[in-house]
């Protein structure tokens, strides 16, 4: 059973069509990347999977179930990393994690939290500090840790590497592959062509609400052909 399906999905925001006939399908353990310029409709796609936006035509399914029929089930199955890592500035990393996780029904003790924060390499001395003192990259790390800790079968990550330094991006890419190998299904939104090519099994190129290209990782390669994707991206950016 595919974990995520978008079928000829069209979505409007403020009466403007922002997605048009988008179709994708993710099997369990797959990593797909949605690549596209600003305003292409990447975030909109994720929000539609979560049921925050309703398609004007077409449909989205999570674990085989139509999202419009059971938003709750979809949200429970998905760990979502929003764009710009929005967390509470007056809480520290532990408090933020505990709060959101307990709302999702997961009780977590500090050791488990620390393991996740270690995986994203957040400095130990920062963890007890309120997040208003964090840099963008540090906040992003906590948000990623949260997505992992949700232990949901599906991860929707919206620009997870923005604000991260190159070393942290490498760590993140490794982490994503580990999670997929562990059976998680991951849909990743990015405009980092290089990173997408390195972690994704398939890249969907989105341009002004339409899918304009699909690139698969050849079975004998460990990454997608970066040159080809770059070329396609550049063509559309110029158009």
């Amino acid at each position, binding site marked *: 059973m595919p974990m995520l399906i978008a079928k000829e999905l069209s979505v409007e925001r403020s009466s403007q069509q922002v997605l048009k006939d988008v179709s994708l399908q993710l099997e369990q353990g797959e990593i797909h990347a949605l690549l596209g310029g600003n305003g292409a409709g990447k975030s909109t796609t994720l*929000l539609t999977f*979560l049921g*925050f936006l309703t398609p004007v035509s077409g449909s989205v399914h999570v674990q085989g179930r139509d999202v419009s029929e059971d938003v*709750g089930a979809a*949200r*429970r199955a*998905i760990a*979502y990393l*929003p764009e*710009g890592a*929005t*967390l*509470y*500035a*007056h*809480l520290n990393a532990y408090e933020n994690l505990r*709060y*959101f996780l*307990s*709302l*999702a*029904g997961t009780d977590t003790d500090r050791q488990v939290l620390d393991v996740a924060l270690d995986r994203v390499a957040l400095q130990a001395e920062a963890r007890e500090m309120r997040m208003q003192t964090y840099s963008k990259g540090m906040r992003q790390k906590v948000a990623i840790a949260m997505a992992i800790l949700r232990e949901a079968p599906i991860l929707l990550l919206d620009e997870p590497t923005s604000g991260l330094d190159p070393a942290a991006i490498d760590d993140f890419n490794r982490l994503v592959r580990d999670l997929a190998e562990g059976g998680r299904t991951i849909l990743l939104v990015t405009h980092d062509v290089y990173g997408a090519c390195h972690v994704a099994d398939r890249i969907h190129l989105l341009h002004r609400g339409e899918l304009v290209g699909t690139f698969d990782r050849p079975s004998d390669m460990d990454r997608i052909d970066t040159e080809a994707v770059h070329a396609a991206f550049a063509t559309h950016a110029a158009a």
Partner: protein
Amino acid sequence: MMGQLTTIARAEWRLWLRSRLAFGALLIFALLLTSTSVVTALRMSEAHHGRTEQQAGAEATFLSQPDRHPHRMVHYGHYVFRAPPPLSMLDPGVDSVTGQSMFLEGHRQNTAMFADVRASAELGGFEDLTTALVYQLFLPLLLIAIGHGLIVREREENTLVPLLAQGVTGMQLYAAKWVALAGASLALLLPLAVMCAVAIGRGAAPLASAGVVGIYTAYLLVWCSLILLVSSTVRSRSLALGILTLLWLGTALIVPRIAVESASSAIPVPGKLQTDLNMQAELREVGDGHDASAPGFQQLQANLLAQYDVTRLEDLPVNFRGVVSQAAEADLTEVMNRHAEERMALEAGQARVAASFGWLSPVVAVAAGSRALSGTDLATHHRFLREAEVVRFDFVQGLNRVHAEQLPYSDDINRNIDAEAAKRTRMSAENWKVLDAFSFRPAATSERLSRANTPAAMLFAWLAMLTAIGALAARRMQP
């Protein structure tokens, strides 16, 4: 479900404790509440003791009068005081704007006077800030200050999507935020509950006291619901704060003023001077009974002579002058009571019109309910006026009976001949005991509860309406 609700509510409380603004506001209000409560309680308990003592003093003075002609005692008069009920330490209501004492004498109903000789300048007008006012006017401001961002803050800071993405429904989030603010309201009701407990200790009816706590609880919950509704429907915190401030101005300052204006234009109460002049004309027709030979009493005289089958007033077994005084007092009182009842009916009508504005403003509703339950409303003042009149009529007529039954007519008409004759008309001071002791009590609990019914219904209507609209808003909550 329940777990998510308490998690979100507790997170809100943690935010308030960590936010210097919210914490500071809470602290200031706690101080304001405590100090106002202490001041109001002290003031009203002082007034209670003062007036009770004055009452006892007035009674002792009356009883200690020497032997006298009974009609001189009718004009010597007596004082009654309206002691404030125990719950007035929360809500003094109309106590400070209506007279609290009255001089009682024959042939007249005096207006209530102000009993407490106290320089209000001394307190700089601060004494007008009562516990009830703090709850009615200022606590909503505090709730607005800490609660206007409840949901719109999450929207502005982009935490609403991640929150809902955890599987929390709009309904649960709405309920949880309501619980958070309602919890703060309940904590703020604690001083009120303590004061009610103290009032019960001083003799307040437990049910009425519980009613006071109940009506303020309903009132603050109305504000919680209103604040949350605004916070969940607007896009920015400043807009929420602006709208709520306007709503506060409207319900707390403007509508109450309109209510009073509408009441006095809907039911005009003629000036006291005018009604008194009209009444005086009617009273003159009846006569005060000082002149027993006035034509008005001819019929009485004829009836009395026929009844006892005598021809001369001197042969009657009763003193005709005393009988005339009794009859005149009864007739005068009927006229005066009719005027007084007319006036009170108009005033009560005004109060009803003003209170009906509670459908528009919960502030008006809670104020009316609070006064009714505390026994400090206009109806209670009217009750005082009626009770005072009963005391007045009873002691005047008691003295008139002494005059009619114990003082011989011949002594009475010849009392100016010499000192010896005058002395014979002095009745024993024993007779002054016709005066009943007066101790003012507000209406029975059941009556006060029933007067608070309509205000309570208004608050529940507000609550029901806001809950219904809130449920709709929660169901379609958008990030």
